[in-house]
């Protein structure tokens, strides 16, 4: 009789951790862990001239989610995949929920000699860019070096014959001016889906940026719950 009582106790004792693990697994599946994108580094500050000859600065887009890429209008077929990805994200942006935050697309040309505002405006039309959302801009060569090469860490090199070697890269920046994602299209099967998913994750963090939920998101940053 005594032996029977003891074995029941042992059984209960050993069952407790199993129950706790099962409950934790269920809670994990039901509530889903918070996902955040890493805060990689500060995005560069900049002063550019856009396709309507107006200035575009990093302060103009503060508070917005911005997806950047880098190229030039004379790029031709080499940029088709990159531009197609940008256009696809623009057309599918309604699929993500970022609340009241604006989403913008900025293509920075590293060929200011050729890419005047008129040329950039024509290039934008060719690509089907919505001018309200997708801006094409450039700057003085020295400033471009600082912004694109040093700031966004996107390589380009002028061959002197109107062509460039460059790093076909997308950079996702949040409303606080912090880089949250960097993507190179050759290595990704579907950048469109991935970037849209990341914008959605960013949107959820922005929607929860105030109140008690923000603490959970800050904790997620410290514990690196990165997708």
């Amino acid at each position, binding site marked *: 009789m005594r032996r029977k009582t003891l074995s029941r106790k042992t059984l209960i004792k050993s069952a407790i951790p199993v129950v706790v693990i099962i409950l934790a697994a269920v809670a994990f599946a039901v509530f889903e862990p918070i996902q955040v994108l890493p805060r990689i580094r500060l995005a560069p500050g900049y002063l550019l001239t856009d396709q309507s000859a107006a200035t575009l600065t990093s*302060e103009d887009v503060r508070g917005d989610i911005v997806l950047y890429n880098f190229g030039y209008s004379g790029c031709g077929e080499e940029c088709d995949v990159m531009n197609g990805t940008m256009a696809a994200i623009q057309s599918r942006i309604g699929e993500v929920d970022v609340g009241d935050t604006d989403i913008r697309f900025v293509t920075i040309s590293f060929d200011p000699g050729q890419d005047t505002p008129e040329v950039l405006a024509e290039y934008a039309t060719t690509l089907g860019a919505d001018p309200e959302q997708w801006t094409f801009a450039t700057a003085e060569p020295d400033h471009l070096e600082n912004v694109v090469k*040093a700031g966004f860490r996107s390589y380009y090199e002028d061959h002197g014959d109107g062509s460039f070697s460059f790093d076909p890269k997308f950079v996702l920046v949040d409303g606080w001016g912090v880089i949250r994602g960097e993507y190179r299209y050759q290595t990704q099967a579907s950048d469109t889906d991935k970037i849209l998913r990341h914008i959605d994750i960013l949107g959820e963090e922005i929607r929860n940026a105030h109140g008690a939920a923000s603490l959970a998101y800050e904790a997620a940053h410290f514990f690196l719950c990165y997708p």
Partner: protein
Amino acid sequence: MSRLLGERWQRRIAAGFLLALVGVAFAWFFLLPRLRPHIFSGTVIQSTQKAPRLELEAADGHTVRMTDFEGRVVVVYFGYTFCPDICPATLSKLAGAMQILGNRADEVQVMMVSIDPERDTPEMLAEYVTHFHPDFIGVTGDAQTVNRVATLYGVYYEAMEGTVETGYTIDHTTTVMLVDKEGFLKLVLPFEGTAEQIAADIEYFL
């Protein structure tokens, strides 16, 4: 009461009550403030890379590098001495934060980088920033170097037409950057932060 419980028990209950009260006070005033997570007024960055390199000139031809301050928290601000409003307001708040930090302010270096290298000489900068706090330093460089440093610290600036009295003014990013003791850029503080909030955020990294 005295009939229901003996004097000894009454004393025990009173002592227990007193002990519980002390426990609650200890938890409330000592434990909770320490256990509560710090809520930053700025945006935290978990970058694995060191803060952008900086090599600029201070007064007396002294070259200042970010690496000179390893072991201290560096608070970097980009402004200019002719700045009519934002810069003095920010430097005043930073001076207020230093005052709040008291002795621990020795572990902090506030540095203003001039975005107006055309007008701000290192000597003018030294005179300007020490007006707010004797330990503040001001640095500058040639236009290209300043543009590179400002760009990498997320700062935009643009000269704007001013009045005859002020000359040109400069529109610029108003955030303040914090570099930790190991040289990592950890925090971006908004202009709206108070001296108390800035001090609390700096203290977290001390």
